[in-house]
């Protein structure tokens, strides 16, 4: 019930319209990967999914944000069933960061199990919305651990204007959530090629539907 109310609220605030360029069918495990410009991004993608997919789809989120306060803890534990990832401080050495990232990827793969899908934002951080930044390598390593999952590109249009970086209050504009054609990691695909191929899938959605 709370999930349903949240879905409606997210749709009202973001005026989000889901566009499926290909139907998403079948029981495959999926990684939905989207461009990232606003705090609302995850909930908007999640809300745009049809119900049967939504119940199996979990966000990946920073632990520090989602364990603060009762409401957030309840939402992430019971409603979204978020996979909470420890964030390393900026000051940490690159050695520590790399180790933490590897741990996080392993956690994600483990938590996905044989059934769950996840939503990730491979740019790593929120951008201004003008351009899609190069992807961090996390998506690649995750796919190496879960080679059979479907990768679904999701382009979020206009979210950066609804709640830009640095703003606390949303302006209720209309937005679109464009789901692209599912793709898969190729056999022995080099990291750079894979990351550029997935990023350009988002670019293409932006060009054609942005």
């Amino acid at each position, binding site marked *: 019930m709370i999930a349903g109310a949240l879905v409606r609220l997210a749709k009202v605030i973001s005026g989000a*319209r889901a566009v499926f360029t290909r139907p998403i069918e079948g029981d495959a495990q999926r990684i939905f990967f989207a461009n990232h410009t606003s705090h609302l991004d995850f909930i908007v993608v999640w809300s745009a999914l049809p119900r049967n997919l939504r119940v199996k789809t979990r966000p990946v989120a920073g632990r520090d944000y989602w364990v603060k306060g009762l409401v957030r803890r309840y939402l992430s534990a019971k409603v979204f069933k978020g996979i909470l990832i420890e964030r390393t401080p900026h000051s940490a050495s690159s050695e520590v960061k790399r180790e933490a990232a590897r741990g996080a990827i392993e956690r994600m793969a483990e938590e996905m199990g044989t059934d769950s899908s996840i939503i990730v934002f491979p740019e790593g951080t929120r951008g201004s919305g003008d351009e899609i930044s190069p992807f961090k390598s996390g998506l690649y390593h995750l796919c190496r651990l879960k080679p059979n999952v479907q990768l679904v590109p999701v382009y979020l249009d206009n979210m950066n*204007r609804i709640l*830009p970086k640095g*703003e606390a*209050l949303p*302006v209720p*504009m*209309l937005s679109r959530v464009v789901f692209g054609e599912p793709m898969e990691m190729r056999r022995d695909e080099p990291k750079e090629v894979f990351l550029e191929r997935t990023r350009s899938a988002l670019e293409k959605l932006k060009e054609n539907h942005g």
Partner: protein
Amino acid sequence: MSVLSELSFDSSLVMLLGGVLAALVIGSLVGFILSLRVKGEAGRATVANLNARLRAWWVMVAVFGIAVATGGIGSLLLFGLISFLALREFVTLAPTRAADHQALFWSFFVLLPLQYYLIGLGWYGLFAILIPVYGFIFTAVRSVLAGDIDHFMARTSTVNWALMVCVYCVSHAPALLMLEIPGFQGQNANLLFFLVLVVQLSDVLQYVWGKLLGRHKVAPVVSPNKTWEGLIGGILSATAVGAAVWWATPFTPLQAAGMAFLICVMGFAGGLVMAAIKRDRGVKDFGTMIEGHGGILDRIDSLCFAAPIFFHVTRFFFDVSGQPIP
């Protein structure tokens, strides 16, 4: 005069509403018969669109009927909501930047509710200047404080024009309830009904006449579907309907015809300007909210310009609350 004190549901309003419902019943029957008889791809598409529009009309008439019947508060809430949804569609298409975020937030959540609140108070003096004086200055200052000068003039004008069209202009429809017309107390809802009836009927009849007889384009660049035949037929027939319901207004039959004609012409102008904005932004419709019609702004584009002009002409010639003209 406060618009909230009165419950405005008199017999002439019931008759107007009944007339509209009768027209909708006939329209829906025609649509149903056409859906059985028309063959061919293009014809079927037109009929399907016609029936989608008719279904949406049932909903819109029901919502408007309830709003008007519940007196001032219902109309204020309805038009406030329309302004909100229209502003949202407009701003979505408008080229603003992150630096305008705060100005837009104030537009949606402070200026818009305040504008309608002032109608509720019946405070004409501030209602008339809130947006073009305080709103325009405030939003420009708020944007400049954000420190982004790229396209500053275009962005500021865009925010101002969005407020003007979607909030200021639209709010003049329920503002008709503020007018004080001798011998017409408690019946102002009829004026609102008259405005909306004529402006929407003019749209529908221009569409119908255009489909039946349309040959010569009025504005081929801006709005290729508008024809001289549709325009003249639509305006004349909607003016005739406006004149025919003079008994529900404070006007004589001739005055009602004049007012209806003015509303139709302003409606056409509004539709044309909004069409140019859509073309400029490279879209066909402002949104997808109303099946067969597009967005809410596509449905009220003609109301935007008709409402303030009808309001002020009526106020100038019929209202007694203002200062005497020197």
